C-alpha cells in the first residue's frame, strides 16, 4: 500500500489487521501458552526415513521449516527453532524435556505403547491423522515445557511436492508444509479460525475479534484462508503454495516472541526468561508500539527524502 506522508496514521488504521489465534490451555482458555525460552531445539529422528525422500532431504526440509519461524529469517522474532539430527530410527515421545520430530512407520502409535495402556491401542492414533503434535504446559503459567511431533508414515507418504509435484495424491503430503504448520503449534499458535462449534468458547484473535468459521473458505478473508496455520489443505491441490508464512503467521510469532536477542544464549544463559516472559501471555500494547514506531519512522525518513529532492 502506498501512503503519502501525512496520511500515515490513516493508512496504518486502514491496514488489514494482522490476525492470529494463540494456543490456550485446554483447562483454562484464558491462559495462552508460550515458551519462556525462545531457543527451542527439535530433535529430528531420521535414521531410516520413510520413502520417498532421503534422510538428507527430510533434514533439509525440516531445517527450512524451522527457519521460517525463526530469527534471522523472521527478523522481528526472537524464536530460534533449531533442528538437531538424530541417527536413531525412532524415539520415545512424552514429558521428558526433549522435543522430538519422528516418523512412525511400523505402527501409528506412540512408540512403544505404554505397557499399562488398556485397551492396548489407547496409545495409537487413527489412520486419518497425518501428524500429531503433543504439547505439555504448566497450567498455572502457560509455559510450554515439551513438544513432540509424530508423522504418520504408515498410512501416508511424505514428499517434496515442489521437487516432485506429480507425487501429489490422496495419501501423499508435502513434508515441509506439514512441519511448518506443526511448528506453528509448537511455538504456541492455534488455527486462525474454528472448524465447527468447539467445546471451548470461541477464541479471540489478537485484535480482539472472535475467530471466524474456517468453512467455507470462500467466506474467509485471504489473510485467514492463506495462513500456514489455516487448518485445511487438499492433499491433491498445491500444498506447496502454503509453505511460506503469511503476514498473519509472522505477526503471531513476533507478537509472542518480539525480537530481543541477536544470538541465542547457551543453556541457562537467560534467553529472555523473566521480564519478557511476563509479557507473553498477551501483548495488545505491542501493535500500538509498532504503529507508533511506523509513524516515527515516517517522520524520520520523509524529510530526508525531501531534502534529497531539493
Amino acid at each position: 500500500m502506498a501512503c503519502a506522508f501525512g496520511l500515515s496514521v490513516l493508512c496504518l488504521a486502514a491496514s488489514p489487521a494482522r490476525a492470529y489465534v494463540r494456543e490456550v490451555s485446554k483447562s483454562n482458555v484464558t491462559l495462552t501458552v508460550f515458551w519462556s525460552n525462545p531457543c527451542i531445539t527439535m530433535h529430528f529422528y531420521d535414521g531410516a526415513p520413510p520413502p520417498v525422500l532421503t534422510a538428507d532431504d527430510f533434514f533439509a526440509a525440516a531445517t527450512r521449516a524451522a527457519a521460517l519461524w525463526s530469527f534471522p529469517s523472521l527478523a522481528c522474532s526472537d524464536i530460534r527453532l533449531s533442528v538437531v539430527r538424530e541417527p536413531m530410527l525412532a524415539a520415545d515421545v512424552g514429558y521428558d524435556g526433549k522435543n522430538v520430530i519422528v516418523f512412525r512407520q511400523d505402527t501409528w502409535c506412540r512408540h512403544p505403547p505404554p505397557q499399562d495402556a488398556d485397551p492396548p491401542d489407547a496409545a495409537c492414533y487413527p489412520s486419518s491423522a497425518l501428524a500429531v503434535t503433543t504439547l505439555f504446559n504448566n497450567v498455572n503459567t502457560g509455559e510450554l515445557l515439551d513438544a513432540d511431533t509424530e508423522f504418520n508414515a504408515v498410512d501416508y507418504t511424505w514428499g517434496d511436492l515442489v521437487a516432485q509435484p506429480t507425487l501429489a495424491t490422496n495419501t501423499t503430503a508435502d513434508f515441509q508444509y506439514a512441519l511448518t504448520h506443526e511448528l506453528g503449534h509448537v511455538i504456541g499458535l492455534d488455527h486462525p479460525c474454528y472448524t465447527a462449534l468447539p467445546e471451548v468458547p470461541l477464541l479471540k484473535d489478537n485484535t480482539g475479534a472472535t475467530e471466524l468459521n474456517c468453512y467455507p473458505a470462500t467466506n474467509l478473508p485471504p489473510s485467514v484462508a492463506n495462513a500456514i496455520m489455516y487448518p485445511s489443505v487438499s492433499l491433491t491441490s498445491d500444498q506447496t503454495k502454503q509453505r511460506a508464512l503469511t503476514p498473519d503467521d509472522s505477526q503471531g510469532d513476533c507478537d509472542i516472541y518480539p525480537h530481543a536477542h541477536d544470538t541465542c544464549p547457551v543453556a541457562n544463559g537467560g534467553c529472555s526468561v523473566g521480564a519478557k516472559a511476563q509479557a507473553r501471555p498477551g501483548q495488545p500494547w505491542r501493535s500500538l508500539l509498532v504503529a507508533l514506531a511506523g509513524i516515527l519512522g515516517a517522520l524520520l525518513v520523509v524529510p530526508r527524502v525531501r531534502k534529497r529532492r531539493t
Partner: protein
Amino acid sequence: MRAMDLAELTGSADRIIVGDVLAADAAWDSTHRDIYTTVEIGVREVWKGAAPANGKIGLRHLGGTVGEIEMTVLGEVGFAVGERAVLFLRHAQLVGMAQGKRRVRWDASAKRWLAEAPDRRGNILVPAGQGAAGVQMQVSDESLDVLREKVRVLLGK
C-alpha cells in the same frame, strides 16, 4: 487430521452410542511420560454394536491435566462430567479423535436435542470442506433425531 464424513465415521466405528459422561480422571502412565484420561460413560442409546452389560463403558484417551502439568494432544477432545454426546467408538477409542464425538445439548426453544457439529479444532490437513470421498462435511448443529436416522440408514437398518 483428515476430515471424516458421517459415512466413514459410522463405518469405522464398532460401537455408536449416546451417553452421559459420569467421570473423567487423568493420571500419569507408569513411565511418567504421558497423561491418560479415563472416562466413564453412562450409555443411554446404542446405535451400533453391543449394549454394555452394566450400562456403562470406559474410554481412555491421551491427554489431560495432573497437578500443574497439562498434556494436550492436538486433535484429541476432552470430556466434561455431566455432558452428553454421541460417540463413534472403535476399540473403546473415538474414531477420528475429536471428530468421533458429537456433543448433545437441549434446544429449549425448539424443544429438541441437538447434536453439535464435530470439533475439528485440533485437526490439520483437512480436505477443504469435504471428505476424502468428496462428501460435504457437517459444519453445523443438527437434530439428534436427524443424526440418528442418518446413521440408521447408513447401517442399512
